[in-house]
């Protein structure tokens, strides 16, 4: 299979620029990166169809290898439509993100930060077990004694 070198160089440039933009933190640049990647992929599909030929309409007597391979073009058409829809949606949520008063930036997950910052000590899991855990304590009012011990155990925890 022969391949058109211009297409390959163009594809490489699109991919390189696309990946560079994708690594930015600004959402608009990320979107531009995705568009470039999509176009790069489309050019790659086009390159697989090999050298161009006659348009794929049936002409009597023409040998099959003289026609252009039309399948990649059908694939590209589908891929373009999909990329278009996703781009429109991305623009929508980027705009929404901006309306909500955020910067045009990829935001950190607050819950993720919270989990990462939490103390390794956990009261429920790591507190010392109080010496007397029986429910049939000999103290006169077992429920009160238990509650006292529980409270004492809780305040000791370095929280």
């Amino acid at each position, binding site marked *: *299979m022969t391949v058109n070198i211009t297409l390959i160089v163009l594809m490489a440039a699109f991919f390189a620029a696309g990946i560079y933009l*994708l690594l930015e933190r600004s*959402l608009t640049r*990320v979107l531009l990166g*995705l568009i470039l*990647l*999509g176009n790069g*992929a489309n050019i*790659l*599909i086009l*390159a*697989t169809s090999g050298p161009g030929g006659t348009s794929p309409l049936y002409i009597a007597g023409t040998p099959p290898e003289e026609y252009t391979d039309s*399948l*990649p073009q059908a*694939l590209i058409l*589908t*891929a373009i439509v*999909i990329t278009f*829809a*996703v781009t429109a*949606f*991305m623009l929508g*949520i*980027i705009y*929404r*993100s901006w309306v*909500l008063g*955020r910067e045009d930036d*990829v*935001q950190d*997950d607050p*819950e*993720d930060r919270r*989990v990462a910052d*939490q103390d390794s000590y956990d009261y*429920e*899991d790591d507190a010392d077990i109080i010496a007397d855990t029986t429910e049939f304590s000999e103290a006169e009012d077992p429920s009160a004694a238990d509650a006292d011990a529980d409270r004492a155990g809780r305040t000791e925890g370095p929280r």
Partner: protein
Amino acid sequence: MIAADLAPLAVVLPFLGAAVTFILIRHARAQRAVSISTLSVTLLIEVVMLIAAPSSGTHAVKLGGWEPPFGIVLVVDQFSALMLVVSSAVSLSVLIYAAGQGMADGDEDGPVSIFHPTYLILVAGVSNAFLTGDLFNLYVGFEILLTASYVLMTLGGTAPRIRAGVTYVVVSVVSSMLFLIAIAMIYGATGTINMADLAVKLESVDPATQLVLHLMLLVAFGIKAAVFPLSFWLPDSYPTAPAPVTAVFAGLLTKVGVYAMVRVETLLFPGDRINSLLMVVALLTMVVGILGALAQSDIKRLLSFTLVSHIGYMVFGLAISTRIGLGAAVYYVAHHIIVQTSLFLVTGLIERRGGTANVDRLGGLAKLSPLLGLLFFLPAMNLAGIPPFSGFLGKLGLIQAGVELGTPLAYVLVAGGVATSLLTLLVMARVWNRAFWRSPADAEDPDPILLASKADGSSVGTSRHVTGEDTGRFAGKDPVRLLPASMTGPTIGLVALGLALTVLAGPLFTLSDGAAQEMLDRTPYIEAVLGAGADR
């Protein structure tokens, strides 16, 4: 005309339903009736296909009358029929749950009415991905379900959902781009994108090129299936979506990725060239995922991490790639879709009853609502793999397969699988101890709804009794039922379905074993699409 000829309906019906519900966008009740009945009919058709599948064998439906490898085919075999039935059953339960939530809260006049059409399109995309026998059509199926999932993920457009949605969309688009590039490269190497045709032609491609194509596809599907180290996006984005949406995403979307990986491994690139790599990946997915879950206090995030972790079990079975290993993986996929979805649905109920999904702020739910306790306990134990639940049976099958293979790496994987199962139990026990067993008074900064009680001290059934200064999300609203039957009903149904997997384990294992045999043989698939003798 055999049952498998009905296959296109599994895709077409949800699409038609989506169109009708879109027209009915201002009529909530009619919309609900149409979407629920559409999915019920789809489920019925798929059950008929599944019952016929073992006897009729693999069957290909040629769309538009074009002969393969030129036209698109839909292929029904035991694996795809089983996946269709399980996914439709789960999506129907979630749909009823979501409709019930809308009815209970009376908020169906808002922009949320876009939910029904989008949801049906998602189901159509999932069915298309399970059925298709054409690589580019698989890409289209993925895009249909992903685009629908973008909308569902950002439903309502609140700040946290937009933040999570951006990450989710970018990661999904990148994985789709990788898939598209892989398709282009495969077309360049072989000149076809029909999967059966590829199965024949890829064998004659240079092995080094084969490896590149193989890995490209696996990375693209690995992102969608959330296999470590490509799973980073999932716990970040899933938990912020509405409860029913998270439930259906957790159940179905990652499994479509796993399904695609199974097809790649068995049909397109058979052989054990990268099985060791897959085993290492499976081990890391299981262990790293569950360790992540241990650190979480939000139940939704915690479940997202267990979701990642248990994807590891499916990759485990796939990496063993013997008949018993693959069969156990198929069974495990069916089990996990149902159990993980029911856990997320129950979490939605917990959030409703307790005001939050953060275990530190919850307590005493088992006493407030014993039904909720039971609904959480059963799938939680099922997920952890306690006998006699289906989680145990699936893991047992995987461990048997690992021991049968007997390589050192397989034994490490078996040990990792057992450890992950125990750690899952620990994670579930932590949630149980805090949210269900301890006294609500021990909870840290509990939501007012958790402490609210009637005058006689009994627990409340609606939000009417939430009084005091900080009534939070109930301020100025009409009282709503906390656990309406329209939401608990589908959850009970799904939990019961999870238990039925144990009762029906015999026939189901026969089915998954048959599916594994069909996939390892490859001939039935290739001959069904291309005609007899094509693979010679």
